[in-house]
């Protein structure tokens, strides 16, 4: 199994969620995140004083999938989250040793 983590623009969350559902993914974990990459932050002006805000609001989407599905899931998210402009985000995957479903005690692929 692999954990796919995507950092995306907040307003792209609905499209990514729908695309993942259409692909057949049955669950995901979403959290609010802040950060910057090459885009850096933006500036805000309060009473003439300019502040640079480095950490831009982002959304983190996490999905655990079967090894064979991982490349497809990455490309599904990639397609749905892309605007082509700077600040679109990042996607990465890491191997997952085990997953357990709390309710039933099932392990591995059965727990997904």
């Amino acid at each position: 199994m692999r954990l796919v983590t995507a950092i995306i623009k907040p307003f792209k969350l609905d499209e990514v969620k729908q695309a993942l559902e259409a692909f057949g993914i049955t669950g995901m974990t979403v959290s609010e995140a802040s950060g910057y990459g090459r885009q850096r932050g933006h500036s805000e002006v309060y009473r003439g004083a300019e502040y640079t805000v480095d950490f831009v609001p982002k959304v983190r989407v996490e999905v655990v999938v079967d090894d064979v599905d991982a490349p497809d899931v990455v490309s599904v998210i990639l397609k749905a989250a892309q605007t082509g402009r700077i600040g679109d985000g990042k996607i990465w995957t890491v191997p997952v040793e085990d997953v357990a479903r709390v309710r039933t005690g099932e392990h591995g692929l059965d727990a997904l």
Partner: protein
Amino acid sequence: MVSFMEINSGDTAWVLVSAALVLLMTPGVALFYGGMVRAKSVLNMMMMSFGAMATISVAWVLWGYSEAFGQSWHGLVGNPFQHFGLSDLLSAKSVVGTIPTMAFVAFQAVFAIITVALISGAIADRAKYSTWLVFTVVWATIVYFPVAHWVFAFDGYAADKGGWIANSLKTIDFAGGTAVHINAGAAGLVLALILGKRIGFAKDPMRPHNMTLVMLGAALLWFGWFGFNAGSALGANNTAAVTWVNTMAATGAACIGWLATERIRNGHGTSLGAASGIVAGLVAITPACSAVTPVGAVAIGLLAGVLCALAVGLKFRFGFDDSLDVVGVHLVGGLVGTIAIGFFASASAPAAVDGLFYGGGVDQLWRQVVGAGAVLLYSFVVTGVIGLALHKTLGFRIDRDGEVAGIDLDQHAETSYDLGSLGGGGFSHAGAALFGSHSTASASSAATSTKQGASS
């Protein structure tokens, strides 16, 4: 008091309603200031305003009213013992103008409260709360009550003899450009200098944590200010109506002036700019609302909006941390409004004086400049003495760790927003310590874990 005038029920109703409107301005200041500070300081910011409501309410009924409106000692200060406790003013025969003396007491009380509250914006995030409360009473007693006497106590109104600015110098200050705004602005400047800069001033971002609170505060201030200005007519009459319209017109113009300045300088008109422009306009028209035409009010508003928008940058140039721009908005706005009367006053307005632009020469102008300068100088010097004395004895600034962690936690043991559910910790209530509990050991361990939960 003075003669057996009839109480007018319309006048009385308007003054009592105005007093309530002006009292609402102080929570308005709390919201306006509270939204502008960081999330770790919002409760303390609001508590400084609410604290002033508490302390000045008591000081006012004990000696404050008497000190401001009792029989004058050489035009400088009223006799604080004449009406001490107000018990001699409760009779239905106790009348000033056309309203019961106690209605006048109520209306003037809320002016004292908001003037003190305004100062707090200059020392956001770092003032020791107990010292602030002591300061509110000492400052009101030595600075505000006498200055209110100078400016607001007219001969033959609440006492035979009133203050020197109102009666001898004859500066026009209808609702408190000098006594309230220049006074609070100068005091804020001194306190900001005495307490010093916040850790990270002009380096770390100190963005307003909640702009919607700021907008709500500005709205309440604008609303309450109709009581502040139109209520100062002390009657439901033509002067009240004229000042009401001028208050609206100047405020709108100042909002436009601030937004235009920002658009040209920074590329965007901001909501904080709109809120600040509104307050700057209200400040500037406060002394002038009885003396100018609505067109004059628009001119004063525009002037205040532009000049105050430029003035808020001074603290970065000169390196003083007037955190929420009490100087840039209230001192500068108060000076603009008070001095502008010398130029824009029109004899067609209720004050019936012509300024320089209306053919009145410089007679009123110098009276305005001297009146404004006198209050500025007195407030600056005496606040400096009070501030330094409190700073050296009680200490006026919290320690470094408390300021970094946040003054809400340090001074009040509270957190403004509990947005997460991961608090942890335990529970103990004050009664456990006061009345003893079944298990002392478990009570004390619960108290410890509550503390840990709060600081994590």
